[in-house]
């Protein structure tokens, strides 16, 4: 399923996973890549169920295309740097750093999509618990990568 914005993909993923439908966020096949996009992969047998759920939520995709070759997989590796008083996690091209004692987000770096400066302005200076989640206010793959770094920091800091 192809949507106009990455943020719609993320909302759709949340909705469908909430209904325990077997979906995965993946990279689009080469013939429909535009530059900053995600798609939702699902088994064809679930199409009717999924369409019904999305229709009820008013979230129908732009298009649905069949795929035969494996799709690109989002990055799932993290690099962790321990600065002593600070901890930094990198996911793909995005890095988030927190102060160990207060769990305040002190910096966000990396990335190249236009929501990165916006996400930084909304999150830096807030604690991991109080900051808005990148998946809720981001719109791009860099925003999604930052969500992964944020989740890894929450996991490591027991938030």
């Amino acid at each position: 399923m192809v949507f106009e914005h990455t943020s719609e993909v993320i909302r759709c993923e949340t909705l469908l996973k909430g209904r325990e439908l077997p979906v995965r966020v993946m990279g689009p096949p080469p013939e429909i890549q535009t530059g900053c996009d995600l798609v939702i992969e699902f088994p064809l047998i679930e199409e009717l169920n999924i369409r019904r759920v999305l229709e009820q939520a008013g979230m129908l995709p732009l298009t649905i295309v069949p795929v035969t070759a494996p799709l690109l997989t989002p990055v799932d590796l993290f690099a962790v740097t321990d600065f002593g008083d600070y901890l930094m996690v990198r996911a793909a091209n995005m890095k988030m750093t927190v102060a160990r004692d207060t769990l305040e987000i002190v910096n966000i770096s990396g990335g190249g999509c236009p929501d990165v400066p916006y996400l930084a302005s909304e999150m830096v200076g807030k604690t991991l618990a109080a900051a808005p989640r990148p998946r809720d206010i981001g719109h791009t793959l860099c925003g999604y990568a930052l969500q992964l770094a944020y989740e890894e920091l929450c996991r490591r800091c027991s938030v």
Partner: protein
Amino acid sequence: MLGIVGTVPDIRVPLIHGPARLVDGHLRLADRRLPVNRGTPALLAAALKAAEYLDGPEIYAVLAGDRGTGQGSRSVYAFLTEQVRELDVQVLTFHYLLPDVDWHNKVLFAVEAMARRPLLIADAGFMYAAKMSGQASAYDFFTPDAGELAFLADAMAPHPFYTRGFILHQHNKVEELIHQAYRDDNAAAHLVVKGETDYIVRNDQVVATVGSPSFPAMEAIGGTGDTLTGLLSCLCGAGFEPTAAAVAAATANRLCGLFANPTPATQVAELIDAIPQALARAVRDRPA
């Protein structure tokens, strides 16, 4: 004149363009006053600080508000497609724009039609689009960090988010990744690879490395890559030869750390204030 193109994270800002100024620590452009703490305004602030020291070049900026939906980016792309031929710029730097291959191709086509083709520098989202378009070699500079270099070296990845793990794992093999990026035509004529050591590359040859002074905390500071690209753009606009500009920019960016004594919590605006001092030393000490 130097042209700098990008976005600001404020959707109230429409497409604006004109000569840029730095006034009381804020960017002044088309009667707007914009903070310089991250993104393209940080790049512009670094370039403007450097231009103060170098006594030029003039800087012309094209910006629009965009929080990631791409609306502002598309207005910038449309402006460039129609107007770039009218800009009298010797250097043109592309920065935080939503990667969009179709728009990238329209912009590059318009640039190629300019009476005098400027030196082209691509960073951030526009660099991603340039690589994905298969036209990386049309550019004079890419300025990737280690993660983005792995993306350039991965012929399959349309965005750093999809860089395959076995390539990401090689981040300590910088030279191998550089060669791989060139083998697949996914690199510009020059690269400045930002990292623990900065690699300056010309046509698949590492021509210089810059490793000192070293402040590991700077990796955590959002915007240090933007300031490096701003310095590079300004030095190229001031007439420095590309490799000399890259070495001086990488050195000056590190020296900002020396003067600002950074921690991982330092904000980039504090580093920008140190640019005149840092650039003075980098230019003074550069190899003959």
